[in-house]
């Protein structure tokens, strides 16, 4: 638990430092034709990716975190604008190659599922986040979200998990999941 907290603290410090660069990123994204609202979403997504990448055991940062985040932003924005059909004549520069394409694809999929999970009830979301994201034990979770005890919390977690799985297996998400499933 302590370790996790320390990890979270470390992440928080890093995030705080990176967020201070937001005005710079904003200007950068704007120069790429990104609106202000989109820019912050992109930036936050890039930060999520950065944290997650850092957690990968084999990840070695070769550039300053800021440049990594900036490149991620660029790539994300590139993907997004392509999807939105606002294709512009960007040439993918070499630094994009730094991104692990495979991992990135997988990450995109998880992101889709993550978005699907927002359809869950708030309690379920919080429960799953606390358990899988922050690694809290059931006793603490029960206290935090106002459940009688850890057994109730555990049962609730099972229900939430089942619901989440249903969501993920829903038809609209299916193509992506299938894509993923084909992989191994």
């Amino acid at each position, binding site marked *: 638990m302590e370790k996790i907290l320390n990890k979270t603290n470390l992440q928080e410090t890093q995030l705080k430092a990176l967020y201070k660069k937001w005005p710079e990123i904003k200007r950068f994204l704007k120069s790429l034709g990104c609106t202000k609202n989109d820019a912050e979403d992109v930036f936050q997504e890039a930060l999520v990716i950065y944290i997650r990448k850092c957690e990968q055991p084999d990840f070695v940062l070769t550039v300053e975190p800021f440049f990594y985040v900036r490149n991620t932003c660029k790539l994300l924005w590139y993907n997004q604008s392509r999807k939105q059909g606002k294709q512009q004549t960007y040439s993918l520069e070499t630094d994009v190659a730094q991104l692990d394409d495979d991992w990135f694809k997988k990450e995109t999929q998880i992101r889709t599922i993550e978005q699907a999970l927002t359809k869950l009830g708030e309690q379920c979301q919080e429960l799953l986040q606390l358990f899988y994201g922050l690694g809290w034990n059931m006793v603490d979770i029960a206290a935090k979200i106002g459940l009688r005890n850890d057994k109730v919390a555990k049962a609730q977690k099972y229900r939430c*998990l089942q619901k989440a799985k249903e969501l993920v297996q829903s038809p609209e998400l299916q193509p992506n999941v299938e894509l993923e499933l084909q992989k191994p």
Partner: protein
Amino acid sequence: MNPEITQLIERYLLNELSQAERQSFELQLAENDQLLQELILHKQVHEAAKRAAQRDLVQQTAKRYHFRKNVVTSSIVVLVVATVTAITLWSTNRKNDLQQERAKQALVSQLEADKHTPLENIVAEYFHLNQQDTVVLSKTGVLLSIPDGAFLLNGKPYSGPKMIQWQEAINAADIVKAGLSTFAGEHLLETQGMFALQAFAPDGTKLGVNPEVGVYVQVPVDEIKEGMMLFEGKKMKNGIVDWQNPEQLTKLPQLADMKDLDFYPPGYEAKLNELKWKTGKKERDSLYLSFEDEPEDVIAVTVPNAGRQMDVQVSFPELIVDPLRTTSNVKADTAENSLQLRLNKLNDSLALINSVAKDFSNSVFETHYGVNPSVTLIGNNQFYVLLEVRLLKGYHVLSNKEQKLVGIDLNRFRLIGGLEEIDSPKTVMLKGKPVLGFEKQVVFRQKVEAYLPQPTFGFNFLYSVYDDGTGEKVQYRGNVSLVGMPFEQLSSAYSKGTISDSISGIETKEHIPPSAVIAFWKPKFNNTILATRDFEKRMKAIHATCDKKVLEAYTDNLNKPLYKIDEQVVEMGYPEFREFAAERVGGVELDNPHMNNLRQYYEGAVSKIRKELKKDRDFVRRQEIAWDNRMQRLRTEEWGRTARRQSQNSTEEARFNYEAMVRQLGKKPQIGFTIFNNAPVFNCDQFAPTRYAQRVTWKGSRLRQLSKELTKPQALPSMASMYAPPALKVPEYKSFSVSLKNNTDYGKTMVYLFPKQIKSFQRLEGSGGQFSGRLNKDMQYDLLVVGIAENGFYLYEETGVDGGQKTINHLEQVSEAEFNRRVEAMNANRLDKPMAVFDELEWLVKEQQNYKVQRLRMEKAAFRNKMRPIVFQCLKEQGSVWDMVELNSPQ
């Protein structure tokens, strides 16, 4: 999906499986595609949840970032703005300051260089002023007040920045240094300072003083010398300053807020503080107002001889004179110069007047008392008091109304009209000058109305006698009290609710009416000459004059400068106001409509206050009178009851005696005797026992008469036995007395005897703790001693007393209920139908309550006596009426 499998997957993903389990699970995975898919799904959800948590973290960071950024941004804006403004202001100011300072310095040095100072060799002070009104203080403490527009530039009011040059030569050294003289033409002046003032515009143009506004200069001096004037200095050709055009000085009154000023008579607040009385202004105002009409109105018991114990004759119920029974108990004061005189009955309703005139002994008078008081009843509770003054030859009383009655309890009496002279005055010679007056004798008459039946009427009579030869005036004062006036026989004017205007009927000449003070002591009069420290000082002196007109001089002339009014007051005959006039305090500017409003308001306020006051006083008076009436009624009833009881008592006892004698003589009483006269005591000579049996037929009626005579208190038992037939044992009496120790602990003590054999009960006569009576030897008596004090009831009971002397040391304190119960019990412990004791009890309870009422009244009176000389400063000097003895406990 099976929860167990889910759990297994979960444990697998969380790395919680043992090696064996893990291998087995992975084996299953390889075989079971469904399980694999489930695992992937689970893992995806797991990852997604984790990602959501991470996103949450990112978003929180974002939120914090934006929040802090906003705060920092906005505070920077404020700071920048502030800094910029400050710098701007500072730099502008600095620039201006520097410039101005330089300009000022230049002007000053220019003035100094040109020797542009009116007083030579005196260091000048410079004050640089902006356009606002300003007050500056010189180094020596001279105050200069320069209002806006005090100076003229080219004949027009100037209101820009200016510089004042100020010079002063106050002490001799400075005056000499400046080469100044103190001559006005050929007259030598006494100076309290010489001053020079010049004003300049910043460009050096000299400014003239605006005569409409002026500059106010206040110089501190050790004493105010009368006749100080302001002189204008003119430099003569020879360089000497001559002082010309003297002008009266006026000082500005020092304005203050009404609420901070004190207009009470001097010492009023101090005394109240000393007595720890309420501190609120409202209460103190109200108390002050309550004295409104009291200079003529002494509620308290007046004490004829200072230093004696308070004579509680009037107020204390124990000693209230019962006009029906105990007129002889009312003794005049035993002082040499007192007298007790019995006036003729003026008519049937006036039983007896027992009047005491005192302190009139003087060679001036024909008689040693000098004043002969008498009363004529008019009816309707009204009567005339006639005061006849007899004078020796060579002395006169002037017809100038110097005579008056004071010290009348206005709660009980009302004076109708003034003191009249019945005879018309003649021309008499006083110190060779003809004046209107009286010689030999003069009768004064005062009409009085009693609000309720009163046993006493007391007052002080003041009059002045002039010596023909020397013209010397001697003032006399007499304390007269008329006792024993059964006004209850008159129709009660009061009960018909006609308290007439007893307050407004009295002219208040000789004091400052509190209402006149309170009426202006209001915020409305702020910013008038009355709301000044200067008037506060004068008010103390006004109180000392006791002349309402002095106060009116100020309140009627709000537009005049104070010193003018001071002078006016000096002319009214108060030289002490000269000192104030010398201060030459000016007025407060008031526009006329405002002033007229205030004057009207003031007049209205005085009468309104008086009206309200009268209402309150009448209310209190009514209550007191109602209480007194009730008390009086109960006492009257008690007298009647006592009389009835006594008669019943003697009837019953006579019957008892008769029956006792009849029993001795057998069934048919056969004896009788003749009583030849009405004498209370039978003369044994007329009733020789030997002849009795032979000559007199003893009959029942005779025996009855004997027994009746026996019950008379004066009958001597031994005598009775002498004329009774030898065979008859005459009922005997023995004397009985009760002596109560600590009698003074109780306001009232009474001794009751409850005989077992007869219905009625007896109350023993006595006073001062000594009671005596007789007991019939054939009866059994229960003794009851009752003490009543303000704090409750006290009892002593004893059953079966027989004659002799009884001393009671202690009475037991009991509650009212217990008291009633025990008295009732003792009364009931007799015959079948004892005489009701209820009325007696009711009366006793009322008497007990009355103690408190009377004590509170006396305390109030004593308190007012203490305050009165302070409220009415002049009355104090008049002497003995006001020399009240402090209220002690009755003993």
